[in-house]
């Protein structure tokens, strides 16, 4: 079994990007606009994964870029601009999530349940082509509901590492978590998602012992 290939949507080379940042710092708004165009889709995805609300995500995109613009002088260039921007966006998104759910403690630091919440229980193999078991909108619905079921601290680590392709170190920087905390949350997030998706994607057998594919899993 081979390792997973890095996400193809990696941010642009740092030196070229840092040049844009420096131009923006000197007051060149077209350079900042290029940074907006480069990362608005990523920020929107991250914001919607955290807030689970489209209007909030739209506000987060605007507020995060405006905050980045207003605080560019404070950006020390010790990390990638994208990592710095993600950190701002995650904080904005968490703030909105807290506002919407004041009854629930929303924190990336929350200790979630017990240590065995990720021990695999479902070990049935999946269909060879799980993505073809459902039509596009059904599949997206399953994936969305499944990831929304994870605690925010796990969901956010999974999205930054596995969907957006940040490294462990960048994720730790963006979320102000330690590297071991990122690793631990990533493992638990991956295992919990796997467990939940198994209900939909596993191979089923009929009474004759023949394998058949069935996609009637429910949460």
């Amino acid at each position, binding site marked *: *079994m081979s390792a997973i290939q890095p996400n193809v949507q990696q941010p642009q080379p740092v030196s070229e990007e840092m040049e844009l940042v420096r131009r923006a710092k000197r007051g060149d*708004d077209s350079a900042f606009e290029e940074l907006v165009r480069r990362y608005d889709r990523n920020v929107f*995805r991250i914001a919607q994964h955290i807030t689970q609300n489209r209007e909030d995500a739209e506000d987060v995109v605007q507020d995060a870029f405006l905050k980045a613009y207003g605080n560019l002088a404070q950006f020390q260039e010790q990390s990638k601009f994208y990592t710095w921007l993600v950190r701002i966006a995650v904080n904005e998104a968490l703030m909105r999530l807290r506002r919407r759910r004041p009854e629930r403690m929303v924190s990336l630091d929350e200790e979630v349940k017990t240590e065995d919440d990720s021990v695999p229980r479902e070990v049935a193999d999946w269909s060879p082509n799980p993505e073809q078991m459902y039509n596009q909108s059904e599949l997206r619905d399953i994936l969305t509901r499944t990831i929304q079921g994870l605690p925010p601290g796990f969901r956010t680590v999974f999205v930054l590492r596995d969907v957006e392709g940040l490294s462990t170190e960048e994720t730790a920087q963006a979320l102000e978590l330690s590297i071991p905390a990122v690793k631990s949350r990533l493992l638990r997030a991956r295992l919990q998602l796997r467990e939940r998706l198994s209900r939909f994607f596993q191979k089923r057998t009929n009474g004759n012992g023949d394998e058949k594919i069935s996609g009637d899993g429910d949460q």
Partner: protein
Amino acid sequence: MKCTEFLNELTGYLDGVIDAQTKAELEDHLAWCHNCYVVCDTTKKTIEIYRNQELYELPDDLRGRLQTAIMSKCTAHKKAGPQKV
């Protein structure tokens, strides 16, 4: 290697960031432990599915509106002079 030890190394294994000796031990475990093989394989598929299916795409029209709003707020901010955002 026990199954719990395998699980602890799973993330590093899937990301390809473990040393050669640990990798060999993990693959030795995978060769005889069917459950861990399935967990490893389906975890890998889980990650790939979320990468392949871009949830929450930003539609072009909304994207255009957001970009315009962001840049006009930035311009207003600049005109208003230095202040905390």
